[in-house]
């Protein structure tokens, strides 16, 4: 057996063991061994942290991840086991992030919230010729802030769909599974949200150009 095939087999066996272990832990928790839930937390906290980090502000990640696990615990009896626990938990994480934005009033930050550095950032990105220059611009704080400014103009639904499909790179079907929405709904919303983002960027640039011309 070639090395990489053996490694893949071992990986597969490892994943299977992990999945069957998850079921065993869940069974114990449901039979009253509450402390066993800490094992699930230890296994999946980084996974949940990764998801919540991509959807809520950095200073609220810990709080939202906390809510995700409490929700998972309270609805653990509804876990059917048809999908791996990780997928089930991901869906809870996404819906908790969605509820976070729904509960929060939409903060439409004015254009004045952006500084001249933000304004110059787009020009720097467009002027970047090499991959390194481009990546350097993408890593800048202004990029993250401009993105947050744009996302702040979207509804909770559009924000989440845009983030899942266009920024995280999930397929429409995967995003639909995570959100519990129909594929068509996700497809339409993803398209609409992207158009909104583009309009925002265009308006932003037009304003910036007008200001410079004056």
């Amino acid at each position, binding site marked *: 057996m070639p090395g990489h095939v053996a490694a893949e087999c071992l990986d597969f066996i490892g994943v299977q063991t992990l999945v069957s272990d998850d079921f065993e832990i869940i069974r114990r928790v449901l039979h009253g061994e509450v402390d066993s839930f800490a094992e699930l937390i230890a296994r999946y906290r*980084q996974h949940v*942290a990764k998801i919540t980090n991509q959807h809520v502000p950095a200073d609220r990640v810990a709080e939202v991840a*906390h809510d995700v696990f*409490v929700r998972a615990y309270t609805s653990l009896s509804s876990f059917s086991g048809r999908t791996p626990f990780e997928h089930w938990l991901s869906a809870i994480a996404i819906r908790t992030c969605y509820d976070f934005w729904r509960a929060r009033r939409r903060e439409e930050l004015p254009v004045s919230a952006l500084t001249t550095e933000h304004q110059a950032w787009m020009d720097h990105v467009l002027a970047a010729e090499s991959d390194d220059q481009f990546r350097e*611009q*993408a890593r800048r704080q202004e*990029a993250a802030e401009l993105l947050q400014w744009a996302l702040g103009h979207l509804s909770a639904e559009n924000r989440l769909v845009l983030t899942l499909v*266009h920024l995280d790179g999930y397929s429409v079907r995967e995003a639909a599974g995570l959100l519990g929405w129909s594929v068509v709904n996700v497809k339409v919303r993803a398209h609409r949200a992207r158009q909104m983002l583009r309009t925002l960027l265009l308006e932003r640039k037009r304003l910036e150009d007008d200001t410079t011309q004056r």
Partner: protein
Amino acid sequence: MTRLNDEHLKKVERALREAHQSRQEPSFGDDWTFRLMQDVRRESAGQGRSMMALGLDRLVWRTAAVAAVLALVFTGSVLFYTNRDTVELTALLSNEIDVVLPLSE
């Protein structure tokens, strides 16, 4: 200064995607897990209490249903036996009248 065309927009979108994906991953400490487990145990105790309350509710409603059925049976039997006694009494009285009438004649 550059006017944005479709290619430019795609480039800006790609940069924003990279910015999004390069967000630093947080890591939670042991105190986070400790607080979380405290809440989980609290939820568990709450669930236990609500299960007990649910059990008590069920017991009360079942007792009420059994009591209602027993009351119906009791009422039915009382009515049934009272009616039968009334019929017998009427029959007895009518016999007495029948017996008494010829004597008076």
